[in-house]
């Protein structure tokens, strides 16, 4: 069906809905198997929040172990049962927790929960479409994610525990049942879950790309799109091109685990016997994994970048600085994201020459990243800053992105990586830049678009408290970890007491654990604010509460399926016309025709 026909159909459908507004949609089609992109966005978001709480709680448990290795916490036994007998975490389960924390937050929260939510919500609303290119595929995307979630959740409760080989699940550790307890059924469930997740991600991503390319309303040229859409578009491109490679890596791993192949296995003696496998390469998996794994970092970062751009500009009452440079730097990051994966593998014994190429390409990413930072700074420069909660999180996003981005310059340089690799320096780096910073982008987006999602505001006071505890806590937790890393302290250690080189950091570890617990409760504050505000929050009374020029605010306060009651608005100008509208307002919406003699930007 061509776009015109589709639009026509959708318009028709929406008129139909409009005419029968008093008929409630059935509960199942409205809230469960919904094909409305806004409802699917909410499904992704709420599933993501539930996963985030689980993932964060896991980090509290293993931080208790790291902070207080000689103490017991009977409360843990209540939650974890046999895994924390007598209140002391079992090492095997410590590794399972670390693995699940990583998998859940990277994939289920910051991929599905982030772009699943905001690409779904904002792409149709901001490009002026009634829904996604294929609402049915969109629904499937959520339900594949849901099924993946179910498998992952089940794996938490099986006798041998969930996968425990790290979120990267390198073989042979993850391939051989003899190598660790989590490499048994837990790993099978992990692989099933992740394969379903890849399917979900592809269905979503293809839909986002198709929608951005084909479903834009009249006048919405590519260069009139808000930066959020550009960011979601490139996020989807990254996902579509790299997730299949990950899946191929998983398929080979499934073969090695179950069908006796030797893709990753060679010359192994384990469990008292030599395995028959020869000729495989354990490093091959790492190439396949990081070919997704690195773009994945940008899949997590780009939505935050897009939303921060939008929110900074909106609350500065000023256009984003260097729109075109922002788009070009997004393209630069997207292209380079595919060419740097091996910087995760500098110490695998790879060819030194190849290593130097990857150093060069990796440090090149600093250029588009720097451009983005400077553009954000100049966006708020000479602005008229309004500190909404969303704005604070967007500013926090920039601060954290700088802090975490700069340490990437250390790690991308192989001669430094050789010492810093797999130490706490890496943990500090990626938690600041793609953990906390991406979360800040997500929080900014939630606070900012909550009124569009639910027709109510979140509570501001709680939002401000949430912001300050989180940013202070994040820096307190991760800043000192850099020092531990420079001292060579390795990641994924259950206990440092026996290590002379590292055990002098024990006091610091205890401090970090205490802060972690405080920050965890601050996040619960957010969760409470979120869910209570859905039902009890202050009602939105104006169509455009943030005075934003973009199209999502031209829809009704409670948009139905189809988004606009009447025809889809036509777009006449770019998304950042923050200038005097001649009537005392400080912005002109995208759907306002050009005045006589006015030139389009």
């Amino acid at each position, binding site marked *: 069906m061509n776009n015109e026909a589709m639009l026509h159909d959708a318009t028709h459908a929406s008129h139909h809905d409009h005419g029968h507004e008093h008929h409630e949609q059935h509960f199942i089609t409205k809230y469960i198997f919904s094909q409305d992109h806004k409802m699917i966005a909410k499904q992704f978001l709420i599933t993501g929040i539930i996963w985030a709480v689980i993932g964060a709680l896991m980090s509290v448990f293993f931080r208790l172990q790291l902070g207080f290795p000689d103490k017991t916490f009977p409360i843990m036994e*209540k939650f974890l049962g046999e895994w924390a007998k007598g209140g002391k975490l079992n090492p*095997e389960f410590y*590794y399972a927790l670390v693995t699940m924390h990583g998998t859940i937050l990277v994939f289920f929260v910051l991929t599905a929960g982030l772009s699943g939510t905001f690409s779904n919500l904002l792409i149709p609303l901001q490009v002026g479409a009634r829904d996604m290119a294929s609402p049915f595929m969109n629904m499937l995307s959520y339900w594949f994610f849901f099924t993946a979630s179910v498998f992952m959740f089940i794996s938490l409760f099986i006798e041998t525990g969930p996968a425990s080989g*790290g979120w990267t699940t*390198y073989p*042979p*550790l993850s391939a051989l049942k003899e190598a660790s*307890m989590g490499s048994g059924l837990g790993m099978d469930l992990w692989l099933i879950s992740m394969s379903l997740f890849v399917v979900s991600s592809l269905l979503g991503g293809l839909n986002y790309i198709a929608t951005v390319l084909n479903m834009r309303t009249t006048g919405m040229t590519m260069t009139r799109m808000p930066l959020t859409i550009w960011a979601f578009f490139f996020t989807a491109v990254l996902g579509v091109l790299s997730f299949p490679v990950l899946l191929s890596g998983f398929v080979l791993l499934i073969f090695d685990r179950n069908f006796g192949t030797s893709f990753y296995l*060679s*010359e*192994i*003696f*384990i469990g008292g016997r*030599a395995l028959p496998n020869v000729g495989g*390469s*354990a*490093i091959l998996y790492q190439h396949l994994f990081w070919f997704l794994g690195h773009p994945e970092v940008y899949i997590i970062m780009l939505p935050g970048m897009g939303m921060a751009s939008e929110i900074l500009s909106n609350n500065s*009452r*000023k*256009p984003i600085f*260097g729109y*075109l*440079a922002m788009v070009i730097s997004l393209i630069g990051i997207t292209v380079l994201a595919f060419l740097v994966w091996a910087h995760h593998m500098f110490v*695998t*014994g790879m060819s*030194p020459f190849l290593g130097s190429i990857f150093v*060069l390409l990796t*440090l*090149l990413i600093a*250029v588009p990243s*720097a451009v983005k930072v400077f553009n954000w*700074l*100049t966006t*708020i420069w*000479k*602005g008229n*800053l*309004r*500190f909404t909660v969303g704005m604070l999180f967007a500013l926090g996003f920039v601060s954290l992105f*700088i*802090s975490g981005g700069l340490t990437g310059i250390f790690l991308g*340089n192989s*001669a*430094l990586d050789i010492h810093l690799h*797999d130490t706490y320096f890496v943990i500090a780096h990626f938690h600041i830049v793609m953990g906390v910073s991406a979360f800040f982008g997500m929080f900014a987006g939630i606070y900012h678009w909550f009124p569009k999602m639910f027709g109510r505001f979140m*509570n501001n006071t709680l939002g401000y*408290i949430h912001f300050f505890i989180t940013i*202070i806590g994040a*820096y307190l937790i991760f*800043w000192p970890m850099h020092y531990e890393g*420079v*001292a*060579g302290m*390795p990641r*994924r250690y259950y206990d440092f007491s026996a290590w*002379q080189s590292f055990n002098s950091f024990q006091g610091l570890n205890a401090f970090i654990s205490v802060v972690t617990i405080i920050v965890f409760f601050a996040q*619960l*504050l957010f969760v*409470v604010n979120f869910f209570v505000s859905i039902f009890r929050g202050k009602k939105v009374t104006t169509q455009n509460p943030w005075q934003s020029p973009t199209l999502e605010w031209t829809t009704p306060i409670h948009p139905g399926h189809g988004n606009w009651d009447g025809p889809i608005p036509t777009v006449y100008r770019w998304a*950042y016309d923050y200038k005097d509208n001649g009537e005392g307002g400080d912005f002109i919406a995208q759907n306002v025709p050009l005045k006589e003699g006015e030139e389009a930007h």
Partner: protein
Amino acid sequence: MSVFILISLVAIVFGIIYQIAKASEYAAVLNGEEKVKQQTNKLMASLLVAFFLLGMYGIVKCHTALMQHMIPESASVEGVGFDSMFKTTLIVTGIVFVITQTLLFWFVYKYQSRPGTKAEFISHNNKLELIWTTIPAIVMAGLVVIGLKNWITITSPAPKDAQIVEVVGKQFNWLIRYPGKDGVLGKRDFRKISDENNVLGLDWNDKDNKDDIISQNGELHIVVNKPVKLIIGSRDVIHDVGLPHFRMKMDAVPGIATTIWFTPRYTTAEMKVKTNNPDFVYEISCDQMCGKGHYSMRGTVIVETQAEHEAWLAKQQSYWDVNNAPATPAADTAAAVASTTMNN
């Protein structure tokens, strides 16, 4: 049950906090929303600046508090390049960090919305953008050049006179093999591995193996000021030989031999004096997640003088002799075997 009580308690507390926060918003409505908005805006700008100032102070405090726990300067000649390069990178990124964060929070304060203020319509500035694209590119090029210079030094072939030692990881300890008098490591085959009498699967048909020494207590004996080349392997899963004091690290991959080489600068005895720590010991950490005992996969490096090293070597029995010479086990070999069984 108590978990449910705990969870419901937490829920009630949060419920109360929410109600208080909500009440404060109603109060805001009563006091005139516009005015409260302005006050909040001012308060937030000040709080952000306070956060920035306290943060900068905290960074200094953190630095002075943690530097005393740092490991000493590089104990290998090749790692000296790391130390200086780290410093250079730290200075470069430090400058960028301070400038950008200062600008961010300064703008936050300076351009906060006040009654009557307006934003300027500025959409781009090609000259400015060109400048801040070019400068990072040039700085990065500089860092790449320094980095590659060091990288080439580290990854170049080991000097011909380097001592050769094989380090093999297994769950969860390190096996270390010295080539013996002939200076050649014999062939090994994973099919011949036996935990009782052939931990590395040495091929006894290869005569080069007969004098090879295997130490199972994870002690790597090397000579000060003499390059050492480690041939690294693994018996089961991927491990990683981490030598933080020497600023070196290399994966141990089953089926693939990897290598690193370096030249130790200080003997263990010298380090004891240098660090004022009579118990100082160089440690080998496993830096690649390898299973439940990953955190306990500890080895040590003993850097000694040539004379000490030779004396130590003379006391070692070859692995062939340990397993085949009846009834004459040297005292320390027995100790080594005992400690291995403990490790297992």
